[in-house]
Structure formats: structure tokens, C-alpha cells
């Protein structure tokens, strides 16, 4: 079975802190994604990565950056956390090389910025 693991289920950080959310997949997938989920707004794509060291902005990249130094790991970075980044963050991965493949999600990280 595909396994996508996010480093924390719950996280509380202070405004202005630099925050790292980590995601690891064990199936050698090329594509990885970070979404955030907010009530009334659904799931929105922050960033995605086609392969190692490759990244593209999604719909709401402002205030975030990403890092993909190894194929299995995709990190989301909040450079200076703000209260409006309090949200549920979901990581996903899937095989690359085409558009028609199944995506798998991690368990999610509920981040609260105080």
C-alpha cells in the first residue's frame, strides 16, 4: 500500500515563527502536492513538485515556499507564520509521467498560529 506520512497531526506555532511541515512518501512517486483546507473554501493547491528540485506554484502560494531535495520528501515552509495560515494542511503524492494516475494523501496536519 502507498503510504504518505506527514510529520505532525497537530501543531501550534507563534506568529512570526518559521514553520516546516514535512511529508514523506514511500512509493517512489514523482509528483507531490501541498493543499490547505478551510471551511467554506474547500481544498486549495499551494505548491506542487514534478520531481526532485522541481516545483510549481499552485493557486495560493503567497506566504509559503517548498523544498524537494529528495524524491520521497516534500517540505512546506511558512517563512513567517501568520494567524491567517491557521488551517488544515494536506500532502499528496502520485506517479508522474502522465496526468491519469491516482493520488494518495497523508493524514493531514492541523496548524494553529497564535
Amino acid at each position, binding site marked *: 500500500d502507498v503510504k504518505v506520512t506527514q510529520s505532525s*497531526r497537530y501543531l501550534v506555532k507563534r506568529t512570526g515563527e518559521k514553520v516546516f511541515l514535512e511529508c514523506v512518501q514511500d512509493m517512489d512517486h514523482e*509528483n507531490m*502536492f501541498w*493543499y490547505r*483546507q478551510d471551511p467554506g473554501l*474547500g*481544498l486549495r*493547491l499551494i505548491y*506542487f513538485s*514534478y520531481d526532485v528540485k522541481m516545483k*510549481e506554484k*499552485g493557486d495560493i502560494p503567497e506566504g509559503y515556499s517548498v523544498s524537494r531535495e529528495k524524491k520521497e520528501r516534500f517540505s512546506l515552509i511558512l517563512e513567517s507564520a501568520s494567524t491567517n495560515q491557521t488551517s*488544515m494542511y*494536506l500532502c*499528496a503524492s502520485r506517479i*508522474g509521467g502522465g*496526468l*491519469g*494516475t*491516482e*493520488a*494518495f*494523501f*497523508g*493524514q*493531514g496536519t*492541523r496548524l494553529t498560529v497564535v
Partner: protein
Amino acid sequence: GIQVEQSPPDLILQEGANSTLRCNFSDSVNNLQWFHQNPWGQLINLFYIPSGTKQNGRLSATTVATERYSLLYISSSQTTDSGVYFCAVVSMEGASKLTFGTGTRLQVTL
């Protein structure tokens, strides 16, 4: 970009009832998935179904790609079916991006 609409937004069922959830999309797709989000927030894969029909136990799904919709059927519902059901697609021009619908919140009561 592609628009994905789900209906109904909310659904309350008694245990044992059947239901149909619908997902309409505005453009051609080559990837469509149904997910169930459990109370802890995790998205559980139900079906990968860009076209055709699949069944898995009490759940089945049908996608008619030419008419741009997909249906998820839940039969003999159980309280454990409660949660939010999402449809997500990748459009033909989507560059791998998975676009989600707004979801159907299902509550199954005893």
C-alpha cells in the same frame, strides 16, 4: 480553470438507506477520484474512475466523461459512512493539478 460542482451539499440519511452523490465538471478530464474525509481529516481513496463503472462493496461509482459527470452510490448506509465526500479531477489541460469539488457532507443516523 476547470470548475467542479458537487450535489447535494448536505445529506442526512437513516441507517440502511441508499444515496447518490453527484459530481459535475466543466471541462474534459483524464483523472477523476472520489474521496471520503474521515472525522480526523484524512482523505481516504474510494475510487479512481476517469471513466466507466466500478464497485467496491456497498459503494459504486460511474463516470460519464463525455457528459462531464460522475456519480457515487452508497447502498445500505452505515453510521461509519458519515463524513465529507469529495470528487477531484485533473483536466486535460491541468498540468497534474488535482481540482476538488466543494464536497457533500453526509450524516447517517440510527
